[in-house]
């Protein structure tokens, strides 16, 4: 039976309907993928060496970029905040201002963006190439779950490495602020660190921790999903990699705002 063509006036509605269904389907696949991965993490066998390899891949290989960007972020922050605080005669609060900005906000967000650019894109490209060269199909027909070997270890490694990378980013950033505020602009060391101890409490650190933990899941989830569902050939891998970085970055900022409104 052939379909009767739609009247011209109904065609825009038809197009919107098809688009909406496609979006809902895509979101469903995206969610199911995470559900499968989390289910796999919670059920044995646990692929310990794949997990260690992913920690090396996501964490260790991102160390240099984290140290560099953390240090310079702290230095810029120290410089800008100092000149703002001087106007109000409150430069003594430079330490807490730098520390709170980094620990609550900039550390988790910038560290996650940096790891996305460095390791997330590589993760998508690696899994994408495995998909187009049938390596993932090879795992499937061996009756082995590609999610268990490729996705679950990455998400678990994201949960471990993102908070660690964030902590490192914060520490190096605070030291960068110290270099500018104390060594360059002449603030006393005691004021910089002493005020920091009075103003930064555990809830600030926990806010940063929960954010980095959730970013770890978001980035590894998005990047592995994009690799898994890659299109055809080199162009497909390139597109998936770009999409993974863009979507991860947008979700990091959106989720950061959401967490900022929920967490104390």
């Amino acid at each position, binding site marked *: 039976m052939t379909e009767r063509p739609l009247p011209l006036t109904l065609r825009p509605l038809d197009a919107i309907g098809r688009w909406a269904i496609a979006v809902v389907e895509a979101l469903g696949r995206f969610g199911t993928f995470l559900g499968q991965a989390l289910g796999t993490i919670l059920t044995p066998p646990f692929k310990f060496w794949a997990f260690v390899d992913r920690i090396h891949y996501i964490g260790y290989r991102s160390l240099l970029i984290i140290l560099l960007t953390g240090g310079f972020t702290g230095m810029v922050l120290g410089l800008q905040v100092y000149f703002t605080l001087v106007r109000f005669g409150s430069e003594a609060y430079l330490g807490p201002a730098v520390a709170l900005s980094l620990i609550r906000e900039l550390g988790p967000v910038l560290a996650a963006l940096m790891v996305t650019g460095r390791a997330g894109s590589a993760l998508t490209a690696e899994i994408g190439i*495995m998909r187009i*060269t*049938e*390596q993932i*199909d*090879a795992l*499937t*027909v*061996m*009756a*082995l779950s590609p999610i268990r070997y490729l996705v679950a270890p990455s998400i678990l490694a994201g949960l471990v490495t993102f908070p660690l990378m964030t902590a490192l980013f914060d520490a190096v950033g605070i030291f960068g602020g110290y270099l500018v505020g104390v060594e360059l602009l002449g603030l006393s060391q005691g004021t910089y660190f002493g005020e920091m101890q009075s103003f930064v409490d555990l809830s600030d650190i926990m806010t940063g921790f929960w954010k980095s933990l959730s970013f770890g899941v978001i980035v590894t989830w998005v990047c592995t999903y994009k690799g898994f569902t890659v299109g055809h050939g080199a162009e497909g891998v390139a597109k998936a990699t770009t999409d993974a970085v863009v979507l991860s970055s947008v979700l990091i900022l959106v989720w950061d705002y959401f967490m900022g409104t929920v967490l104390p």
Partner: protein
Amino acid sequence: MIKVERLVKAFGRQQVLRGLDLDVATGSITVVIGRSGGGKSVLLRHLIGLLRPDAGRVLVDGADVTRLHGRALDEVRRRYGVVFQGGALFDSMTCAGNVAFPLREKLRLRAAEVATRVEAALTQVGLEGMGSKYPAEVSGGMRKRVAIARALVTEPEIVFFDEPTTGLDPILVNTIHHLILELHRKLRFTAVMVSHEIPEIFEIADTVAMLHEGRIAEVGPPAVIQASPNPVVRQFIRGEPERAEGA
């Protein structure tokens, strides 16, 4: 016994399989031939459960793999070995690592036994001492042989070959075909091979099936196919060019 019944598959508006029927006898080598882009690999992907048909069934000893999911499908797949067109070797592992992988992960054998069987498998395909090389460091022919070693090392009951000789020179094509034949005699697996290596496959096949326009146009022993009066089969095995319409 593998039985394909009225298999139908379309990608969008492109109808690839149009009610295909095929029987594969246990222990035989069945080669599916046909033109490039004619749906041979699509058929193979249905047999190994990587694609779901729009209609029809694929029965492997009575179990319909098109309806199975999860563990039930994995149970059938445990009996399989698959040689992919490009080899599909894990490029992060050495050749030996690739062959060892299914032994370690699928059969969960001890390290000592894995090492012994890997060495034996690589020797069997003429690659002794090459185990420490990565897939990127060996030639196309060697990669195919590693892929065959990986597919057969678990001694599967059914082995699927997706154009195992594509892109190889004629000497390597014959080498790979004779290797498959030799291993088949030794291990007695059921083999389904997709190929368009004419006439070489007639030397190794027990049954040849010609796929044309989404259906099996003719099936039978190599001698029957070679002598077929069917113009589609004759044109394909003789490699005659298509005539322009109206010519």
